[in-house]
C-alpha cells in the first residue's frame, strides 16, 4: 500500500521485524504451551520472554502482572466486571463522558443491572474537574475507569493522581491506556493504578492481541473461565504468535520512546501549524499543552468530515473524522460534543495521527493538499460566502428540523 497513513490512532502497521519474530510460531513452533512435550515447551519460553518485554514497556514490578487477552475491549470488560464481582457491596462506577465505547457501552449495559455510573464532564479543552471527581469518590465506588489519553484528541488525563485519590477512598482504579502505551514512558510499579488495558495493534503489533495489567494483590475475578492459561485469570489457548509479536513490538516501542516524543512530536506540530496557518476558521480541539505526541485533531468549520476524508482519500491520504456520517450515527463524536464544540465545527473535525514511520515529505504533502480540499468543500457549503463564512452563519442558513 502506498499513500500517506495518518490514522495511527485507529490502527498501525505491523512492523516487519514483528512479523519476522512471529513467523516461526505459525510453523516450526506450533506447539501448545500447555503441552508436556518439547513442541510446547519452546513456545512457553517464547511467551515468557514476551511477557517480560511487555512488563518492561509498562514498568510493571512483576511479569505475572501481565495477562494476555484478545484486545483492548476484552481487557476493559474484564477489568470493570472483575472489580464489580470482587466487591459486590459496592454498586458505583466513576468514568468520564469521553471514554472509548469499550468503556461507555459497557457502563450503559451495567446500568441496566442496577449499577450507578457517574460520568465526569470535561471542559472546552477536554480536561476533567478533579474537584467534581473527589466529591463522587465514596465507599460505594467499586472502580474508577479513566482513559490515559483520549483517542480523538490525544488529551491526557491525570490518571496517576486520580489513582491515588481512588485508593484513598478504597476504590479500584483502571485506565484504558491503549493510546498511551508505546507513546508515553510508563512506570506502573510506582503508581496506584490497579488495572490497565493495552491493545497490540496500536503499537505496531497485530490486531487480536491485548493485555490487561493487573497489579499484584488486586482482587480479581476472571471473565473467561476454563483452562489454567494466564494462571487461570484468562482461560483459552494462548494466541502464541501474536503474543510473541506484541513482545517484539513492546521492545521496539521502548527503543523508539524518545523518537516518538521528539521527532514524531515535531512532525505533528509542523503539520498542525502548517494547516492552521493556511486554513481560515480552523482550530485544534482538545488540550494542545498536554497530549499524545502523535495526535492532532483539527476542526474545520462549516463543512462535514466524511466529505473531507473522501477527498483526502483521493489524494492517498488516510485520516479520521468525528462526523456523524463516518460512523453511521446521528450525532457527531461524543468527545467533541462533551467539549461543547458546536455542531458546525464538530462534524468537520479531522484527526491526524502520525507514527514513527511518518516522514517529513508526507507532512509537507498533507499541508499542501488540505487547504485546497477545505476550500473546495466550503464552496458547496450554505454557511460560506466567497472567501469567508456568511455574515451571521447561523442565520444565513437555518434549515427546518435543525
Amino acid at each position, binding site marked *: 500500500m502506498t499513500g500517506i497513513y495518518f490514522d495511527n490512532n485507529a490502527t498501525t502497521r505491523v512492523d516487519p521485524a514483528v512479523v519476522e519474530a512471529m513467523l516461526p510460531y505459525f510453523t516450526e513452533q506450533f506447539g501448545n504451551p500447555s503441552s508436556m512435550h518439547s513442541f510446547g515447551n519452546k513456545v512457553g519460553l517464547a511467551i515468557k520472554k514476551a511477557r517480560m518485554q511487555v512488563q518492561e514497556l509498562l514498568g510493571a514490578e512483576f511479569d505475572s502482572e501481565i495477562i494476555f487477552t484478545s484486545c483492548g475491549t476484552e481487557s476493559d470488560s474484564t477489568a470493570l466486571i472483575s472489580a464489580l464481582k470482587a466487591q459486590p457491596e459496592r454498586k458505583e462506577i466513576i468514568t468520564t463522558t469521553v471514554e472509548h465505547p469499550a468503556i461507555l457501552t459497557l457502563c450503559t449495559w451495567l446500568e441496566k443491572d442496577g449499577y450507578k455510573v457517574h460520568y465526569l464532564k470535561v471542559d472546552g479543552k477536554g480536561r476533567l474537574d478533579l474537584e467534581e471527581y473527589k466529591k463522587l469518590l465514596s465507599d460505594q465506588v467499586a472502580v474508577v475507569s479513566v482513559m490515559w489519553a483520549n483517542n480523538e484528541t490525544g488529551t491526557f488525563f491525570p490518571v496517576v493522581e486520580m489513582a491515588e485519590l481512588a485508593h484513598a477512598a478504597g476504590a479500584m482504579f483502571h485506565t484504558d491506556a491503549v493510546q498511551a502505551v508505546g507513546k508515553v514512558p510508563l512506570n506502573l510499579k510506582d503508581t496506584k493504578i490497579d488495572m490497565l488495558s493495552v491493545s497490540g495493534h496500536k503499537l505496531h503489533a497485530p490486531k487480536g492481541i491485548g493485555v490487561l495489567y493487573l497489579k499484584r494483590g488486586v482482587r480479581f475475578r476472571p471473565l473467561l473461565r476454563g483452562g489454567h492459561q494466564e494462571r487461570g485469570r484468562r482461560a483459552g489457548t494462548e494466541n502464541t504468535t501474536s503474543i510473541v509479536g506484541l513482545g517484539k513490538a513492546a521492545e521496539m516501542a521502548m527503543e523508539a520512546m524518545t523518537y516518538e516524543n521528539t521527532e514524531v512530536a515535531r512532525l505533528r506540530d509542523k503539520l498542525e501549524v502548517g494547516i492552521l496557518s493556511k486554513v481560515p476558521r480552523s482550530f485544534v480541539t482538545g488540550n494542545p499543552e498536554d497530549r499524545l505526541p502523535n495526535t492532532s485533531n483539527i476542526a474545520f468549520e*462549516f463543512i462535514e*468530515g466524511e466529505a473531507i476524508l473522501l477527498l483526502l482519500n483521493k489524494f492517498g491520504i488516510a485520516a479520521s473524522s468525528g462526523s456523524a*456520517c463516518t460512523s453511521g450515527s446521528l450525532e457527531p463524536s461524543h468527545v467533541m460534543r462533551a467539549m461543547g464544540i458546536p455542531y458546525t465545527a464538530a462534524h468537520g473535525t479531522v484527526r491526524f495521527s502520525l507514527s514513527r514511520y511518518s516522514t517529513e515529505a508526507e507532512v509537507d504533502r498533507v499541508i499542501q493538499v488540505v487547504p485546497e480540499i477545505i476550500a473546495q468543500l466550503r464552496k*458547496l*457549503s450554505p454557511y460560506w460566502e466567497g472567501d469567508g463564512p456568511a455574515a451571521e452563519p447561523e442565520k444565513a442558513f437555518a434549515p427546518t*428540523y435543525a
Partner: protein
Amino acid sequence: MWDYSDKVKEHFFQPRNAGVLADANGVGDVGSISCGDALRLMLKVEPETDIILDAHFQTFGCGSAIASSSALTEMIKGKTLDEALKVSNQDIADYLDGLPPEKMHCSVMGREALQAAVANYRGEVWADDHEEGALVCKCFAIDAVLIEDTIRANNLSSVQDVTNYTKAGGGCSSCHEGIEEILAKVMTERGESFKPGAAPKEEVSASGMTNLQRIRKIEAVLESVRPQLRRDGGDIELVDVDGKTIYVNMTGACAGCQMEALTLQGIQQKLMEELKEFIKIVPTKVSSLTRAMKG
C-alpha cells in the same frame, strides 16, 4: 469505508449545479445540523409554464448528501413543478445506483428540499413531518423512531410482532436486542413489562403463515431452484415481499436472458404451490437494500 456506487462517487467528486443560484425564485433549506446533513436547494422557475429552468444546491454534509443533491438538481431541471414533485427519494437513490442503508436519509433530504423549495416558490409554508431515529435494522433500513411508533400504535409486545409490522429484525436478527430494548421502554410506558418468552400475537396471512414463516418459505423455494439457475451461469435473490407481490433480482446470465420470463413463470408456479395462495413474481434491477425502502 462506505460502499458507495461509482455514480455516487462521480457526483461527489464532480458535483453538478453546486453553488448559489443568483436569481432563484424558490429556495428550500432542510436538514439537521446535529446529525450533520443539511441542504439548500435553489430553483429558478419560469412563472408562465412552471418549468424549472435551473436548479442549484449547497450542502453541509457527507459524500452521499452532496451526491444526492447533485443528482436531484440534474433530475428536476426542465421538469414542471408537478412533474418534479413526483421524484421520490427512491428515484434519487436509483439514479445514483443505490445508497448504503445508513445513507438513505440523504435521498430523503433531497426530496424534502424539493418540497420545501416548491412550497417557497408558491408562497406556501412547508411543514416537515419527518423524524429520523438511529438505524436499528440494517437489513431493511428501519430506524428506532419507526419501530417505536409502530409498537405504540399497534400495542405490540414481541420482537416477532415488530418484524411482522415493520420488517425490522426479519433479516440477520442481530438487532433483536435493540428491538427488545425499545419494546421494554414502550411497554413500561403503558404499564406492562416486556416478557421475551411471551407468545407473540401472530398476524396470519392467507396462507396461514406469519410474515416471517412466509418469507422463509419463499427463500426455501428460491433456494431449491438456485442450482438450476447457477448451472446456466445465473442466480436469483429475494428483494422484497409486499403482500402478494414478490420482488426478485435476477443476476448473472439470468439478467435480461430471453428465457427470463419463462423461468420466472416457473418459479411463480412453484411458489404458489408451496404457499397455497396466488402471488405475483416481479423482477427488479435495483439492489435489495434500496428496494426494501419502498415498502
